[in-house]
């Protein structure tokens, strides 16, 4: 079942397209990774899909009113912004905002706390937790919003390796439970291992979209990321390790 479809989506900054004519869809049960170098348009694409920035083309989410959209898609921005000394339960409970007055004993809030293993932290002040724990709190907040689609911008940024793995495993479990999930990632190893499909963006354009093995090709890595890498198919999934930066053609000649 298609949960999100983007058709010819473009975002212009002045005259310059930062997202350029992108068409893709997210199915229920899919974990989709948006990859690409800095400035490729990953964040802008997701924000446009959610109606947070003006855009051309179509997003199935922006066709519906904002109040309905809040019940269809949850958003986890890269900056882990939590103002004030709100408790973990308060932060997670805010996810229930689209459904009317927030109750502290809302069963969906409790379920989200349980699912992310936060029940014992529920009364702690969220901003006093570690970065990894705060990331889990914000995923639980998105989960409490009870939406079929969850989008996350760089959810593993500034997390230690264990927290990065836990975060991606959580998204994989949520996808297995029927959610459609889109995450932007810089770590191609995590993207290769956990995402069902990757969307490779370069200068605002969708260069490749499909299973990790078909997107992380030597040619794409060279042309888009300017790296070569080691690949290995294991029973843990596709293992990917960047090896070298490939200098631009001009510099190579100079050497």
């Amino acid at each position, binding site marked *: 079942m298609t949960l999100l479809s983007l058709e010819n989506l473009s975002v212009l900054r002045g005259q310059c397209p930062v997202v350029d004519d992108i068409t893709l869809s997210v199915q229920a049960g899919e974990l989709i990774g948006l990859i690409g170098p800095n400035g490729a348009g990953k964040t802008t694409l997701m*924000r446009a899909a*959610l*109606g*947070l920035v003006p855009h051309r083309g179509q997003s199935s989410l922006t066709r519906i009113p*904002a*109040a309905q*959209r*809040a*019940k269809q*898609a*949850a*958003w*986890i*921005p890269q*900056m882990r*912004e*939590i*103002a*004030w*000394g*709100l408790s973990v339960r*308060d*932060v997670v409970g*805010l*996810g229930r*905002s*689209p459904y009317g*007055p*927030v109750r502290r004993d809302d069963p969906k809030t409790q379920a989200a706390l349980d699912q992310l293993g936060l029940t014992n932290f529920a009364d702690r002040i969220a901003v006093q937790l570690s970065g990894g724990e705060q990331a889990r709190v*914000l995923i639980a*907040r998105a989960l409490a*919003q009870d939406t079929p689609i969850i989008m996350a911008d760089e959810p593993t940024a500034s997390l230690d390796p264990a927290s990065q793995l836990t975060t991606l495993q959580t998204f994989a479990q949520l996808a297995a439970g029927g959610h459609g999930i889109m995450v932007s990632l810089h770590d191609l190893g995590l993207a290769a291992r956990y995402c069902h499909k990757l969307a490779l963006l370069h200068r605002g354009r969708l260069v490749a979209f499909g299973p990790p093995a078909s997107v992380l090709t030597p040619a794409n890595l060279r042309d888009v990321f300017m790296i070569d890498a080691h690949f290995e198919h294991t029973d843990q999934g596709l293992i990917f390790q960047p090896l070298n930066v490939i200098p631009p053609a001009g510099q190579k000649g100079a050497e």
Partner: protein
Amino acid sequence: MRLFPILSILLMLLFCASLLVGHTTASIGDSLSALITGDGPLGTVMQDIRLPRAILAVLVGGTLGLAGAAMQGYLRNPLAEPGLIGISGAASLGAVLSLQTGFAGLFWLALPLSALGMSVLAVLGILVLAGRQGRSLSLILAGIAISALSGAMTSLVLNLSPNPYATAEIVFWMMGSLSDRSFDHVWIALPFCIIGGAMVLSLGPALNALSLGEDTAATMGIHLARTRLTLVIGVAAMIGATTAVAGAVGFVGLVIPHILRRWVGARPSTLMGASALGGAVMILAADLLVRLVLPDRDLKLGVVMAILGAPLFLHLIYKTRADLS
């Protein structure tokens, strides 16, 4: 949450004290019966002087506390206060202009109407400057611009004042006071305070959601532009009206949410109601101090608030710094 009943009881006690304290001394029983019957000179004092003064103290303090909590919640900044969007500065300019030109002397409504009129102009200016996007940064910048312009114009009026008496009158008015106010002042401010207060209180869920940032709030169904418009008009109605009748009183909107946040929790929806009660308590107490400490020297409410509020704020900064380190 036990703080709400405590603040409510404190508010009632201070309200009663405000009715009983003043130049005219009488027993509690005589004062209360005079308040109800309105008979004799004591009846006039109670009904026409002390009752409107106590009601205005509740209105001014309540709206400053509420507006302060709303502004801090909206901007997610504990240093935000109602004056940040420039309405109190604009209302002061309106009042100062009416004093300077003599318009204030034409009829009793002239000064508050001038202040309210200038507040409306300031709101329009802020809305035009802040643009149609619902972001908070543009609102802060617009507020600073309007504040700076109002301050500059007020300085210009003082600078060009033809005689020292007019200057003194303006300076005293700007210090903020609740003395010599009547029910007419209450009737001017009350509708604006009720409407503005209801508008701001309706923003509780939106301000809670904004605790997680503007993008997250927007994706939880919060209409950012509508929230900002409601906040600006609601805060402006309250602050414009109370500045018009009592002058500019500082620190309440800044300090009260700060103090109460550690007692009632950080959720803006809860903090707003508590701050309204807390602000009313603080102004009632400060206005009692004005009458008790130097009853013959016409001590100004704004001065007392600054003297009380500044050290309190310094203490809070010290504590916050200690918590952060």
